[in-house]
């Protein structure tokens, strides 16, 4: 992660909140915030305030949605009426539905769903305050909440966006940059598997810019990843160089399969 040099060359141009082009907003993650949930996490990413809670694996209701040979991951992204300005209706929107779907796709590759036939893992996301990039922040919280629930994972899922604003490719757009910018590319990434599991984009960019944004977002995800691990360590005193994906160790609260460092380095 030798980004310091790159950044110094762009000194004069500044972002709305003074960040460098490839600087994340401040992130704090706390685990175990919902006592009733099997696992939970609270994230602040910029001014986003988001709670993720996990229930499961548990029996699926309604049963017809269960699968005979594998578990189902069900994410529900939901915004509090007071999370945005102006107030929004509490009824779920089409946008909420779509984000729930792509979040599910972003997280499912990190789980061993084949271990839970006929069951469901429910991940509930409650957006308390929204500030641009809620879907990425939600995925970050969800991944930590799943780990907090003791659900074995191939890897944590880290998520963050890059985009184009005022002709520059920048990392982790805030609300203002998102709305005034030219495009936004939210990414979710499994660092150890080196796989992108969420990828969306909206706006106007050349192919080169798009690829640059994807790569910048991946670097951002790697930083998020460290913060996620830190949050879990704080709770579990944890456990970094543990099992491998192939082993079944469901007793482990988290199952992080470290691959050789080189692979992670892109």
């Amino acid at each position: 992660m030798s980004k310091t040099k790159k950044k110094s060359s762009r000194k004069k141009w500044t972002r709305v909140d003074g960040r460098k082009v490839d600087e994340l907003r401040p992130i704090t993650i706390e685990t175990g915030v919902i006592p009733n949930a099997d696992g939970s996490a609270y994230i602040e990413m910029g001014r986003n305030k988001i709670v993720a809670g996990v229930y499961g694996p548990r029996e699926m209701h309604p049963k017809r949605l269960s699968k005979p040979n594998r578990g189902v991951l069900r994410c529900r992204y939901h915004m509090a009426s007071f999370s945005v300005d102006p107030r929004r209706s509490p009824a779920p929107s089409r946008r909420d539905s779509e984000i729930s779907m792509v979040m599910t796709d972003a997280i499912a590759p990190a789980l061993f769903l084949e271990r839970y036939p006929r069951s469901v893992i429910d991940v509930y996301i409650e957006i308390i305050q929204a500030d641009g990039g809620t879907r990425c922040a939600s995925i970050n919280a969800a991944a930590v909440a799943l780990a907090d629930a003791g659900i074995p994972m191939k890897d944590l899922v880290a998520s963050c966006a890059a985009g184009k604003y005022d002709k520059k490719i920048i990392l982790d757009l805030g609300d203002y940059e998102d709305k005034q910018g030219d495009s936004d590319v939210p990414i979710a990434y499994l660092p150890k598997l080196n796989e992108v599991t969420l990828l969306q984009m909206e706006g106007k960019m050349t192919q080169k810019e798009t690829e640059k944004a994807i790569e910048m977002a991946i670097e951002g995800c790697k930083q998020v990843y460290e913060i996620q691990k830190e949050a879990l360590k704080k709770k579990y005193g944890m456990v970094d160089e543990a099992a491998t994906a192939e082993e079944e160790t469901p007793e482990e609260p988290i199952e992080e399969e470290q691959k050789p460092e080189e692979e992670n380095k892109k």
Partner: protein
Amino acid sequence: MSNNIVSRLKRKKIQEVIATGKRMDGRELLEFRELEIKTNFLAKAEGSAEVRLGKSHVIVGVKAGVGHPFDDTPDKGVMMVSSEFTPVAHPTWEPGPPNEASIELARVVDRGIRAAEVIDMSKMCLISGEKVYLIFVDLYVLNYDGNLIDACSAGAMAALNTAEIPVYKVTKGKVELTDKTKKLKLGAQPIAITVVKIGNDLIVDPSADEEEVLDGRITITVDEKGTINAIQKRGAVGFTVDEIKKCINIAKEKTAEIRAIALASK
């Protein structure tokens, strides 16, 4: 059926302990759990309160807007209290439109505020019959461990006391947003106290377990002058007049304690 037996055993146990003048968690019969209220912590809401009452965890958001008055009160602003039981808050809660319990919660909190004339709605009119202020009080339950009415009532008052709403003005028959904000002037400080009957004993601030086995409950909303603004009895048993009087006395006593916490950050 097994569930049923569990519930009956739980009831027996809780009742036995209460008979000794104590609660399962060591509290006195008329003792609240610790109540913490944090206000004004949401940037996109005009007012907000985060309430923790034991493990019950609720967020109250106050939002203001402009809209049509009701047909029968053309010169009055509109206040609406709504409640959302997020699925993250309890393993048995499911996503969907408000259920009966959620509707009751919102209506009981609403009734206390409305009857006490906390907000002088006749001062919230912009253009008679056309445009008035809308005040939304949204109750958002993040973790359920009993006594949501009292938690939400206190949180709603804390949020209303600290809210600053944008000021609109009417220019040539058009409503315009100014850059000013103003505090709401509150006409009273009603607080709801719920007294629960288990067997022949009366307790306050029931936990989720206690609510599961209760026989009846009476919620009494009392303002700072001791005026009673609302009562709501629920549960499939009756109360004698003497019991009702005891409940009112308990509520009057407890209301000061809870009000002090709710208004601490006023």
